[in-house]
Structure formats: C-alpha cells, structure tokens
C-alpha cells in the first residue's frame, strides 16, 4: 500500500481565514478545468476546497457548461455546495461532510461515499450516492430526490421539510427525527427511535424496525404509496423489497396540553 500524503496544503495547515472568518477570501477560480463543448473535467487533487467550489461556479455560471466531472475529491468537506442552477455534476470518488449542501437544481452523482450532512437543505435537484453515507443525511431538505445506494448513519432526514430520501441499505437510530413533510423510503432495517417527534410526512421501511420513536405510528399502505415507490425505484434502477411498511405521525404532539400535570389532577 502506498502511504504518501496527497492532502493539499489546506488540510495540512488549515485554510487561511480573514478576520471575519471567511476562508481564503482572496482566492479566485483556478481555471484549470478542461472544457470540451458543454462539458468540463476538473482534477481536484491539487486544489483547495474553496478553489474547487469557485471553479464549479465559474464553469456553470460564466462558461455555460452543463456537465462537469470532478476527479480526485479525496473525501474533502463542503464540495459542490450552494449551486443554484440546473446542471450535472459527477464526482468520481468520495466526499466528506456537507457534500452538495444548499443546492437548488443540480443533478449530482457521487460514485463513492459521503460523510455527515450530505445534501443538507437541498431545495431541488437530484443527488445519487453509490456507496454509504454518514449521519444527518438529507438534513432539512425541502425538495428533490436524495438516493443513497448503501447504508446511512443516524438521524437521516432530520427536520426534513419536503423531497424524497431513498436508502438502498440500512439506516441508524432516530431516522426521520422531527421530519415535517416529504418521504423517506428505506429498503433495509432501521435503528431505534424511527420517526421520533415527526410532524408529518411518511417513512416507508422494507426491513426490520428496531423501535418506533415518540408519536410515530404505523399506517396502511395505499395504492398511491405503492405507485410512488415503484416509480421512484424505476427511475433510479433500485431493487425493490417485496413489502414496505408505512410510518406516519400519530399527531399526539400536535397540540400542547395547556394544563400542568398537577392542574390536570384538579380539573379531573
């Protein structure tokens, strides 16, 4: 095994930060991508995180490129964030934390895995991850499809406000914690506390459920649910488990009880 460091300067000494905490404030797009027609290829090996993101912006916003292939991402954090346009990105490898966060529009395909908080707060678009994802996957997403073919960590789709999260493997504890809208389709098993304190939305589980969270209840699968799952699985070419169970909000936490426990005793 080769054990030589390829980490760019940024990870060895930390990025340069100005007084307001902005990382590398004076960096500009490196213009190293190789452009062929509407496509471009970017080798990220020698670039810092900020340079990679600035280069992606330049390609999509200024050069009118529609499809970019990023090589050698080396599990770095915060890659392909904040892109607000329709475009296609293929990441050849794994990313770290906060991959494709705050995006509105892009279709991203990541051939490796991602760390925590992938596609956080996605507004629209598609993010497909071929391998595993860390915890907080799809935190607070509002729209779009997030597909993880491998396993995901804990608290998947925490605070989800829309969109669809599809997981080919297993999910950890507190999946769908505090979700408010949208759908999650988990093909494998889920950990304890499924749908804890969820307000609305639906979670479909193909495998075993370790335990349900507070105010999460099982509901009947309807033909519309089956049709939705079939459609999504056809789009992403996923193997469908035979049977899904559906979990929704029990609505017991929708209203606060205005009485204190000792007051309630008096009333009763």
């Amino acid at each position: 095994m080769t054990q030589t460091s390829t980490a760019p300067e940024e990870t060895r000494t930390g990025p340069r930060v100005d007084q307001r905490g902005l990382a590398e404030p004076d960096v500009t797009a490196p213009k190293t991508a190789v452009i062929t027609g509407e496509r471009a290829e970017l080798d990220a090996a020698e670039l810092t995180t900020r340079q990679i993101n600035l280069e992606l912006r330049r390609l999509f916003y200024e050069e009118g490129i529609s499809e970019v292939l990023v090589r050698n991402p080396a599990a770095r954090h915060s890659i392909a964030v904040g892109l607000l346009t329709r475009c296609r990105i293929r990441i050849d490898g794994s990313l770290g934390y906060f991959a494709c966060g705050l995006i509105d529009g892009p279709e991203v395909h990541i051939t490796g895995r991602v760390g925590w908080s992938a596609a956080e707060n996605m507004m629209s678009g598609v993010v497909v991850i071929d391998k595993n994802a860390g915890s907080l996957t799809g935190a607070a997403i509002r729209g779009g499809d997030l597909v993880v073919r491998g396993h995901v960590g804990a608290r998947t789709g925490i605070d989800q406000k829309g969109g669809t999260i599809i997981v080919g493997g297993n999910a950890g504890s507190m999946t769908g914690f505090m979700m408010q809208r949208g759908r999650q389709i988990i093909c494998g098993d889920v950990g304890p506390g499924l749908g804890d304190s969820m307000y609305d939305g639906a979670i479909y589980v193909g495998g075993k459920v370790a335990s349900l969270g507070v105010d999460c209840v099982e509901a009947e699968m309807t033909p519309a649910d089956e049709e939705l799952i079939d459609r999504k699985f056809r789009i992403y070419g996923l193997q469908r488990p035979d049977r899904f169970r559906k979990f929704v909000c029990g609505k017991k936490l929708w209203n606060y009880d205005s009485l204190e426990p000792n007051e309630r005793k008096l009333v009763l």
Partner: protein
Amino acid sequence: MCGIAGIIYRGKTGDVGRDMTRMLQSMRHRGPDSTGFALYGEPTDLLVMRFKLADPTDERDFEFTERLERNRREVEARLAKLGATIDRVQGESEYAYRATFRYSGELKPLADYVEDVPGAEVLSLGHSLEIVKDLGDAQTVARQYHLDGFRGTHAIGHVRMATESDVDIAGAHPYWAYPFSDVAVVHNGQLTNYHQWRRRLERQGHRFQSECDSEIIAVYIAQRMEDGLSLETAMKQSLDDLDGVFTYLVVTDTQLGVAKDEMAAKPLVLYETDDMVALASEEIAIRAVVNHEIDTYDPYEREVLVWSR
C-alpha cells in the same frame, strides 16, 4: 467537537508516528487546542514511562530550569529507591521526559511516588505504550517530540476542542488508565454521569490526574479487564454504565477497540483491509495515510468492535 483517530497494522510494524501525525493534522479543524498520541512501539522487557514536570503555560521564573533539573533527579532517585534499575532518562521536550527501566514490582506505588514530586505527572507507563500530548496541532507536537521516526504496531490519537476542562496537558487526551500497564483511551463526547463514576472508582482506590470526564473511561475499562473481563465485554458493559454521548477508542498492548453510544451521536468512519484497520472522525484523516479511493462505513449505535494487531 474533538477528533479521534486510530490505526492498527495487522501482523507487522509501521511508521505509526508519521501516520498518526498525518491523520490528526488533517482533522486540525476539529480541535486546535491540543493534540495527543498513544503510540505502541515494539514491546520490550523494559518499562517505558513518559512523564512531565511542568506545563507549557507555567510561568518561566528564574528558577524554572534548575527546578526541573532538581525534580528530574528526584524522580530518578525515587525510581531507584523502589528497586528500579534505570536504563535511560531523556528529555523529550523542555519539560517532558521518557524513562526506561527494569522493574518487577507493582505499578501503582511507583506511579504514586513519582507523581508526589512537585509538578510531576506520569503520562503513561507500560512495556510498549508511550503517550505524548501537548498544546498545538499535530505537526507542532510531532515536531516537538520527534515522532516522525516512531515505529510501532498501533496507535490512537486525539485533537481537542476543550469544552469541559482547561486547555493544558492534563486536559489533553489520550488518557492512560492509571495505574494499569499499557491501556489508553481517546474520547469524543461528554459523559453526564462522570462524577458518580469518579466517586465510585475513587472509593475502589483509584486516583485521577485531571478533571476531564474522559479519564474515567480508561480506568473503568482497565479495572474491568483486571477483574477478568475481555476488552470487548468490558466495552459492552460500558454502554450501559456510561451516560452521555461518546465515541471512544481504547487500546491495550495487543488490541484496539471502538464503542459508540446508543444515539450514535458522535462520528466515526471505519476502513478495514487485510493489513491495516484505520478509524477516524472523518474519512479525510484516513485518506491522509491511504492514497486511493476507499470503501468505508460508519458503525451504528451501541456497536463495539475490537481488533488485534
């Protein structure tokens, strides 16, 4: 936040000092306050003791160097008095030392006697364990203590963002399981029943070097192994006994283990091949020592995993 990392080479030795430095340096953003290493060299019949006689933040008064020299001689005298045959005592930094000696008695009286010297703190004691910790990032500490050439079988490390106690060497990880030979722990998280466990362990005769909650994990695990449990069983028991959020790594002279709390609140990425196992809070740390795309996964809640070298 804190970052933790571990590496174990299967059936061979490696450049563990260099590799752990790279892993920790790549997670510098997780904790810039202090960095610590628990490195396992080739085991010998000599005991290795790492100790310090002052802190980097101590005031440098006129007597500083003389006092250090006097106290170092006192440590040597006390070791000799307890029947240890000193092989070598060398200064590793301005105030930290590495002593090797032959000694067949119990470790607790020896460590207690050494720590009774003013300013002295035993950082580690064992036949292969060496703990190095100081303020600053991994490169700063590795350069200060010349860790680049350290070869060994396995190691854990920690970059610290102080939340529960001071920024000083006593608050830096890894923690040696005082006074058990060759056991150390790094921890990312907070223990909420720390005071209960500290009192419980103190009643059993243990003493603690810091105010840091993580230190009890080391002593807790080592005590249970002393009572006859395997590392894995001891770690499984800890999931019920310890309250709070944690991902911790524990090492002995032959094993490396990881445990996660029941909410999987703290991160860990795991990479396993036939010739090594590497774990870290972020994949970027593993990629600092493995120069190609890798398949990794995150252990789930309440998982305990143990590997042998």
